[in-house]
């Protein structure tokens, strides 16, 4: 009985624990050290709590687990419906894993308005977790919008020189795109009388909505636009470099690590789940955009003089892989897409932390300002190399598994997509290794760099868990894929039917 209680309340607990600790933080006196310790301890506790979910997760079951379904508002019919499957469980754990690291990396670098910073960070965590756990479309939209404000505040208050511009741009891009999703959600509610994802999905699948076929394409686009801006899919990516360059390190880590995945998660869950037929139909142009994103992102990253911008564009490229994998509609492609999401979250998060560490010492991200850093900062250089290798997809590290699976899926779908996407892997090795060479190898070109202190204890504590995770994910991907695979298979079943329908005609 007690385990039953726990399994029905654990999701609520994990989701709102950060918010609760954020509110508690509000009451704490303004002693920066205490606030930092409190934020760290509470976010670590949330992480430990969230580990309950994958540990007791029934891996072979494809459906939603730890479900809670309570009426929240009777009219309109809004439910507090939460639940996770093999897809969302890992994104949730990724969020709770990265947050304490964000606290650590901000330990020294944030020294003004410390209290506000950590409160905002914790509220953001709740909103992010909520996005991945909501099964009620209304609740989902609620959390989706709720992530906007804390992120915009993190960029706008704690960012660098052009922070206000970047914050407003970020906010407006996502806000405008997501109102189309709201319109689509409202349409679905008007037709079905429910916001429940499962109910709406079943009604659509049964063909119970007479007006649906005429509107389906618009609904698909409404959802897709909101997600594509968030991913960001080419050509909606222009807000991303600005937001990243101006954001504080912790903001960048969560932005790249988790916020972008909200978009790909949304596509996977809602576009594929609700509109399988339209997903099929629209796949060609979406895959083309994904391919353009992979190659364009990589090429632009290659010529960036700014380290953070380079990493930002590399995200555009990597997220292109995810979208490509999703729209290949193959088991391998979807598994790979999921794995790239997680791997990208860990290694790009770490890359942003490493860039932040340099910025902390020299207050610049310009690659030309550095050179030969390997000799004054050997441990830092080694950690950086490890993460770079993980990110370029060295076998036995996390990046390789996902990209390999995505490419397999893309080849199965259409060989030319696979061939073109494979060049992205080469480009990514190019820009990252070239950047690494310019920053770390050769002679120290700027004398100030000679006296730079090596990576500190807090920074190690933030970066090394990511490196460890990258290694484990690379060596034993089955730990993750074991849960992902059944969920992906379930997500793909309607496509098998759609495909057979097409063949049958």
């Amino acid at each position: 009985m007690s385990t039953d209680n726990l399994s029905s309340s654990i999701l609520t607990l994990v989701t709102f624990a950060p918010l609760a600790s954020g509110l508690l933080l509000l009451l704490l006196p303004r002693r920066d050290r205490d606030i930092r310790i409190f934020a760290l301890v509470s976010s670590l506790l949330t992480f430990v709590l969230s580990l309950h979910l994958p540990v007791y997760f029934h891996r072979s079951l494809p459906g939603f687990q730890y479900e809670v379904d309570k009426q929240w508002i009777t009219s309109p019919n809004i439910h507090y419906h939460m639940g996770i499957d093999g897809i969302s469980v890992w994104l949730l754990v990724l969020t709770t894993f990265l947050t304490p690291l964000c606290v650590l990396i901000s330990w020294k670098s944030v020294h003004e308005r410390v209290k506000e910073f950590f409160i905002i960070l914790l509220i953001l965590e709740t909103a992010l977790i909520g996005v991945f756990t909501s099964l009620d479309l209304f609740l989902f939209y609620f959390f989706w919008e709720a992530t906007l404000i804390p992120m915009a505040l993190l960029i706008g208050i704690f960012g660098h020189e052009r922070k206000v511009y970047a914050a407003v741009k970020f906010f407006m891009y996502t806000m405008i795109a997501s109102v189309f999703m709201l319109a689509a959600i409202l349409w679905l509610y008007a037709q079905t009388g429910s916001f429940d994802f499962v109910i709406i999905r079943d009604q659509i699948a049964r063909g119970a909505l007479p007006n649906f076929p005429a509107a389906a394409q618009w609904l698909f686009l409404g959802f897709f636009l909101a997600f594509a801006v968030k991913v960001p899919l080419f050509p909606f990516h222009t807000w991303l470099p600005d937001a990243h360059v101006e954001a504080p390190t912790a903001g960048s880590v969560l932005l790249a690590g988790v916020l972008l995945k909200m978009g790909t998660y949304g596509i996977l869950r809602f576009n594929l789940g609700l509109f399988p037929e339209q997903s099929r139909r629209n796949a060609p142009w979406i895959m083309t955009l994904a391919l353009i994103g992979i190659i364009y992102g990589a090429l632009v990253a290659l010529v960036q003089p700014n380290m953070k911008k380079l990493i930002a564009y590399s995200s555009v490229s990597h997220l292109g892989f995810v979208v490509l994998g999703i729209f290949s509609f193959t088991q391998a492609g979807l598994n790979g897409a999921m794995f790239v999401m997680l791997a990208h979250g860990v290694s790009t998060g770490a890359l942003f932390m490493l860039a932040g560490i340099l910025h902390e010492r020299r207050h610049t991200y310009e690659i030309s300002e550095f050179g030969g850093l390997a000799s004054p900062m050997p441990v830092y250089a080694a950690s950086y190399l490890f993460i770079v290798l993980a990110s370029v997809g060295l076998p036995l590290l996390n990046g390789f598994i996902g990209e390999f699976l995505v490419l397999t899926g893309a080849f199965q779908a259409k060989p030319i997509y696979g061939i073109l996407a494979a060049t992205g892997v080469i480009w990514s090795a190019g820009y990252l290794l070239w950047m690494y060479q310019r920053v770390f190898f050769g002679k120290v070109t700027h004398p100030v760099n000679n006296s730079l202190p090596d990576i500190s204890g807090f920074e190690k504590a933030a970066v090394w868990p990511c490196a460890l995770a990258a290694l484990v994910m690379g060596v034993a991907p089955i730990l993750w894929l074991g849960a992902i695979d059944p969920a992906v298979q379930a997500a793909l079943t309607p496509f098998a039917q759609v495909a057979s329908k097409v063949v049958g005609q």
Partner: protein
Amino acid sequence: MTAVEFMSAPPALLQTIPQGVDYIRILPELVLSAFGIAVMLLDPVVDEKTSQRFLGLIALAGALFGIAATWYMSQSPGLAFSNMIRVDSFSVFFHFLVIAIAAVVILTSYEYMAVQRIRAGEYYALILFGVVGMVLMSSAVELVLIFIALEISSISTYILAGFRRHDASSAESSLKYFLLGSFATAFFLYGVALIFGATGSTNIDDISRTLLAGPVELLIYVAMALMFVGLGFKVAAAPFHIWTPDVYEGAPAPIVGFMSTAPKAAAFAVLLRIVFVINAPGRQWLIWVAAALSMTLGNVGALVQNNVKRLLAYSSIAHAGYLLVAFAATPDLGTSAAMFYTAAYAAMNIGAFAVVSHFANAGERYVTLEDYEGLGRSSPLLAATLTIFLLSLIGIPMTGGFFAKFYVFSAALKANLVWLTLIGVINSAVGAYYYLRIVVVMYMRESRREVPVTPIPFGLGLALVISVVTTLYLGLFPNRILEYTQQSARALVAPVQSGPTRALRTPEKF
């Protein structure tokens, strides 16, 4: 009157002689009038230095007793005064809303009066008298009575707008409001006359039955359009919105908070009755155009404003547009969505203006965006409350503004108004930009100018707490209010189908 007498009295007489219960059904109006008169009489008697606080307290007590009277009134619903007034949950809702707005405005005015050196007597009395007109508008079902109530409320607000006597812009505001406003009421009256000509009645229920029974004449369309002009002016809907920015800029800030919520709520109540009970022919396209125009012009206008009062004026035009969207939907859903919206809008807008009026300081000197720079640091509490109101005006989840928009748009979608909904959601995304500009300058810019921030006085603090709590309550637990508005919506629409039928008088007899 005993039951026997009741039975034996001739039916015509029964309708004309007011009974005790008739007075209960206008009890809030009576209570508010009594307190208004008391304030005016006491004004010359009490010492001028202490009068502001004392009279303010009396006015506040008047509002609180008005709320109590509303509760008492709600216990005996029904028609009163020869079917001129209808007390149902619809009118009770607007009574409560308007009087609560007045109470909050009195609280915010408390300190403002001293700073602006305004004589308190007339000010508070005018607020109370204005409220009498507004609440009467919400319960009147007789167009002539509605007109009288509209005039009572309008004349009070015309004068209140000019209360910063030493400031030319305030006089301009008052005069402009008065001239254009009387013009608009004339339109309304003309519409009433025409509809009387067409149907032979000025009673809303009778009119609706006549329209249901017979063919619709062209005259009705003209009458509807004219009445819409009059009410459209009062709610500041495009294309009758031109006065709004100038009037709001010049009027005292607490009064702007009042003007932009209470008379609007009352005018929307009338509009709801006219649109949905009469079930006005041709309403759909009329409202469609007005709603789309208001949303777009309001938001585009607000984008370029640098004065916060003007910005909020344009924002109120946009919000009138969102609200009008509900009027194009089906009667039951549309009414409840519109009622919820008025309540949510009142809470957030009055709160926003309360902050603006406190921050503007003596002589309303600090009202530009530059003055708000760095407010997040110099006055964190004030900035945080203003942020909550602005987020609610944007329509961010967890605030009342979100659910308000949500209900309106889902009601519109239920009525298959896909394009209007799309215009609405795009507009609300555009609107986010200018509200955020205020948040951005408060938190993300350093102040370049010395702007004094006085501590928050108790009255204002209380008003802010009420507004914040209401805004968040409506955003987190909208259930109860929504159930109430749905019930009122059914009560509003029901009499048309199943009300007591009265013999219709034909126009020839008059």
